C-alpha cells in the first residue's frame, strides 16, 4: 500500500484509502480540485497531498549512478571532509587527547555524571571555546545554550571568558613575533554576546525549541555548537506515560542528529545519573533509560575517583575506551593538578 508511506496525517490517509486511492499512481494524474471533491477536503489540502505525492514519485523515477543513492557520499569523500572540520577543545589537554582532539562537529555527544562533577562548567567552557578565532586553532563560531535547570551563571561565564582571553594572549605572544599585527580584539563582552541563551521550563517547550532550532540556525549560520543542560530534567519527574516519553525522546534525538549533520555543528547533551540494578548489584548509569542510550554518537561519563574528577569514554564509533583526569578551577576546566597525568587505557 504505497499511500501508507506518504508523510501525511492519519485522517488524510484514511480519507484517501476510503475513497479507493491506495497507490500513488492512482491519483497522481488527477487535478487537485477533483481530488478535493472526492475526499471532501479543501482545495489547499488536496494540493498539499498532490505535492507530497509527486515529490515521492519524482524520487522514484530519477536515475542516479549504478546502485547509488541520491545524496549519498562515498567513504573516501567523507574521510577527507573530516579533516576540514577542527574539533572544539575543552581546555584540558588530557580530556582533548582521549576525545581525539576535542568535541567533534557533526556528532551528538552525551556527557553525564553525578551532581557537582562539573557538567555545567564543561558546558559553559565549550560555549566559550567554540568562539576561539580560527587563527588560534578554534572554530570562530557562536554557541546556543539551552538551559532547563537554571544552572547557567553569567558571572561564571564572564570569569571563564576572561581567563580564555588571557590564555589566548599568552599563546599569541609565544607564537607570533609581530604581536602588534594580530592584536587580539576580543573582549569578554563580545564572547558573551555570541552565546544565544534559551531557558525552557517544561518538556513541551523543550521539544518546541528543538523544532524551532532548524529555522534559527539557518538564520544564524555561524552557530557551531548547541548545548542542552540538561536534557533529562523535564522528562524525569511526573511523566505518567512512559511509552510517550520514549517516543518523544527518540524523536528529539533524531532531530538533534539531523541538526548536527545538516549544519555541521556539534551537539552536546548533558545528562543526569540514576541507579540501575544490573547483574545483581546497583550501578550508576545515565538517566532516561535504555532507548535513550542509543540516541547519541559518543558518550562520556564523568565520575569521582578518590578526590579527583575523571572522564571516561563509554561509547564511540571511532575512539577507544579511555579515561582521563580533569579539574575545575577558577579559570574553567583545566588539566588536573596531580602528579601522575598518565592517560589510563581500559
Amino acid at each position, binding site marked *: 500500500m504505497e499511500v501508507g508511506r506518504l508523510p501525511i496525517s492519519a485522517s488524510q490517509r484514511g480519507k484517501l484509502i476510503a475513497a*479507493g486511492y491506495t497507490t500513488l499512481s492512482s491519483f497522481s494524474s488527477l487535478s487537485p480540485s477533483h481530488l478535493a471533491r472526492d475526499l471532501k477536503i479543501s482545495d489547499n489540502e488536496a494540493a498539499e497531498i498532490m505535492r507530497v505525492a509527486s515529490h*515521492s514519485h519524482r524520487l522514484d523515477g530519477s536515475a542516479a*549512478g*549504478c546502485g547509488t543513492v541520491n545524496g549519498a557520499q562515498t*567513504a573516501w569523500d567523507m*574521510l577527507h571532509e573530516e579533516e576540514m572540520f577542527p574539533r572544539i577543545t575543552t581546555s584540558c589537554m588530557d580530556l582533548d587527547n582521549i576525545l581525539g582532539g576535542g568535541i567533534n562537529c557533526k556528532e551528538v555527544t552525551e556527557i553525564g555524571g553525578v551532581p557537582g562533577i562539573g557538567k555545567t562548567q564543561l558546558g559553559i567552557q565549550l560555549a566559550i571555546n567554540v568562539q576561539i578565532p580560527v587563527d588560534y586553532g578554534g572554530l570562530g563560531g557562536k554557541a546556543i545554550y539551552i538551559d532547563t535547570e537554571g544552572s547557567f551563571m553569567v558571572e561564571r561565564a564572564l570569569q571563564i571568558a576572561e581567563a580564555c582571553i588571557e590564555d589566548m594572549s599568552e599563546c599569541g605572544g609565544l607564537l607570533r613575533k609581530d604581536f602588534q599585527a594580530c592584536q587580539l580584539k576580543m573582549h569578554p563582552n563580545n564572547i558573551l554576546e555570541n552565546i544565544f541563551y534559551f531557558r525552557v521550563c517544561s518538556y513541551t517547550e523543550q521539544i518546541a525549541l528543538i523544532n524551532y532550532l532548524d529555522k534559527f540556525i539557518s538564520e544564524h549560520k555561524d552557530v557551531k555548537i548547541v548545548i542542552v543542560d540538561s536534557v533529562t530534567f523535564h522528562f524525569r519527574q511526573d511523566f505518567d506515560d512512559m511509552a510517550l516519553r520514549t*517516543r518523544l525522546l*527518540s524523536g528529539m534525538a533524531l532531530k538533534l542528529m*539531523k541538526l548536527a549533520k545538516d549544519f555541521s555543528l556539534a551537539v552536546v547533551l548533558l545528562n543526569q545519573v540514576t541507579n540501575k540494578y544490573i547483574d545483581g548489584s546497583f550501578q550508576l548509569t545515565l538517566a532516561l533509560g535504555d532507548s535513550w542510550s542509543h540516541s547519541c554518537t559518543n558518550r562520556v561519563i564523568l565520575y569521582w575517583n578518590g578526590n579527583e574528577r575523571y572522564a571516561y569514554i563509554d*561509547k564511540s564509533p571511532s575512539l577507544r575506551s579511555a579515561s582521563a583526569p580533569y579539574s575545575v578551577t577558577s579559570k574553567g576546566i583545566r588539566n588536573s593538578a596531580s602528579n601522575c597525568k598518565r592517560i589510563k587505557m581500559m
Partner: protein
Amino acid sequence: MAPLKSLEQDYPILDSNFQSFCASHDIFSVEDLLLHDLYVLAAFAEQESSSERLKQGITQVLSIIDGKHQPWLNGMELLEDAQRNKHVLSSGCEGIDLLLHGGLRVGQLTELVGPSSSGKTQVCLLAASNVAKKHIGSVVYLDTGNSFSPQRVTHFICQHSDPAIDQAKHRTLQKVMNNISCKSVFDIFTMFDVLHQLEFNLRSQMQGGDCKMQLLIVDSVSSMVTPILGGSGSQGHALMISAGYLLKKLAHEHNIAVLVTNHTVGGDGGISKPALGESWKSIPHVRLLLSREHGGSICNVSILKHPSMAVGKAARFMIHN
C-alpha cells in the same frame, strides 16, 4: 487498486455504463469487486441489455488484478536460484563467520541486537569494509546516528593488507572506499524514499560491471521506528512492517545481503529484550545477540533466530583497536 473510474482512461471497456452497473451493486473500486460474489454479479449482468460488454468488463478487471501478483516458482527454480545467486559474504569478523557457517547470506535480512556500546556499529563497519575490499561489491550504509566513521573503515581495510608500496596502497584504499556510500537518514519516510529509489536503480541497471551492490546496512532501524511506534493508531506499526518487507524484498530480488541493527529495552523481571516488539521478531531471517563486558574488548555473539541453526549457539570475537 484504484477506483473504477480512474481505470477508464487506460481500459475503455470500463465505461460509464459498466461503472453505473457496478455502482448499483455497491462496487466503486477494484477492491470492492474482489469482495463481491462474482457468479452473482455475472448472473445480474446477464439480465442487463449490454450483458456481453459488462461480462468483458468484469474479465478485464480480473486480468488487471492477475497482473499484480508475483510469478509462481517451483522448488527446482528456487534451488537453482539459491545455488547460483545466493552466496555467502564474509563479515570480516571470524567469530561471526564461524557461527554462521561463512557469514552473511545474500538474500537474507540479518539483525544485530545488543545493548548500548556492545559493538553493533563496529561489526557493521567491519562488514562494510570487508565486503568492499574482498568481494569487490558496493555497499550502501544508511546511518541514523552519525556513527559512520571513515577512519575506522580505513583502519579495517589497511589491517590485513600486504606491506606494499605506499602509492599502490593509497590507490587501492581509494578504490575500496569509493565502493562504500553512506547516507544519513533521520526518519522513516526518508528511508522509504531511499529504498524505493534504490529498488528503481537496481531494476534498471544492467547486470555486470564492478559496482554491483552486495550489502545494505541500516544502522539503526530501531531509532527510526521508535518515535512512531505505539500511541494511538497503528500507522507506526504498519510502517515498521512495510519497511521490513521492503528490505527483505530488496534482498531476495536483487541478491543483496541486508544487515540491520536494533537496540534492547528492559523486559519483565529486568531482563533486557530486543526493541520493536513481537511483530518485528518474525521479520529478520537471522537474529544475533551481541554483548560486551564493561570495558572489555571481547564481544559475545549468540543466535536468537536462524532458519537452519539451533538457537543459543554462541561465539566470541575481539574488536581490534
